């Protein structure tokens, strides 16, 4: 039983870590926390001329 709980816990941690690495844009999050004068400008575009 203990091994099962550890395995499930490890799986949850691994999935959470993968989600945070793959789906969260840390660059944007960090940029939004900077003082306004130091932030990078967000420039929108679409892949068309």
């Amino acid at each position, binding site marked *: 039983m203990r091994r099962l709980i550890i395995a499930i816990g490890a799986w949850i941690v691994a999935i959470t870590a993968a989600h945070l690495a793959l789906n969260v844009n840390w660059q944007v999050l960090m940029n939004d926390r900077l003082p306004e004068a130091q932030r990078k400008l*967000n*420039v*929108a*575009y*679409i*892949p*068309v*001329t």
Partner: protein
Amino acid sequence: MFQGFPEIKEALMSNKMQAAFMVAPMAIALRAQGVPVKIVYLGHRYGSAVVVRSDGPVHRVADLRGRTIAIPSRFSDERLIVFRALAANGMNAKKDVRMVEMAPPDVTGALAASAIDAFSMGEPFPSQAEIGGFGRVLFHARQYWPDYISCVLVVRQDVIDKRPEAVQTLVDGIARSGLWLDEKERAKRHRLLAADFVGQGDDVAAHAA
């Protein structure tokens, strides 16, 4: 990267984005509606075309009568091109054709599936349709609109007021990227890098160039 101009407009208005490339008429409309933005840089010329099905019945502009044409936005140069071309051929865009707004990445699939008869759009979509074998350029924007400009760089007025240096850096960088693309010795390699940046294949980039 966005997939449509209306989403860009909303992101700019909500300050999620501080600057945006958008079709010139939309920038003018935003300004006219009281949204505090300013055009700080003009984009490219001549990148747009009207494309029809390669095996379809449309071989000249007059054949567009009664057809459905996809455009990126009602506030787009691509819509105005259709107006100009039809007027030059004695037709009225409001009466003689049906225009539907469609996100640019969707138009090639819609043409291939015959959901539309034509689209008026910027590159790389005309090239995608031609390389795919189901589309044919009916006319390019420059044929009816010399000095045509499609997209412009728009920046929020509050950003211009508070951070003019950052805006100048942005404009300088974009100008330099244009010169970089035009470097004759490495133009082909640079175009391929740029194509990768917007998620296009080498063949489409070469065809569009």
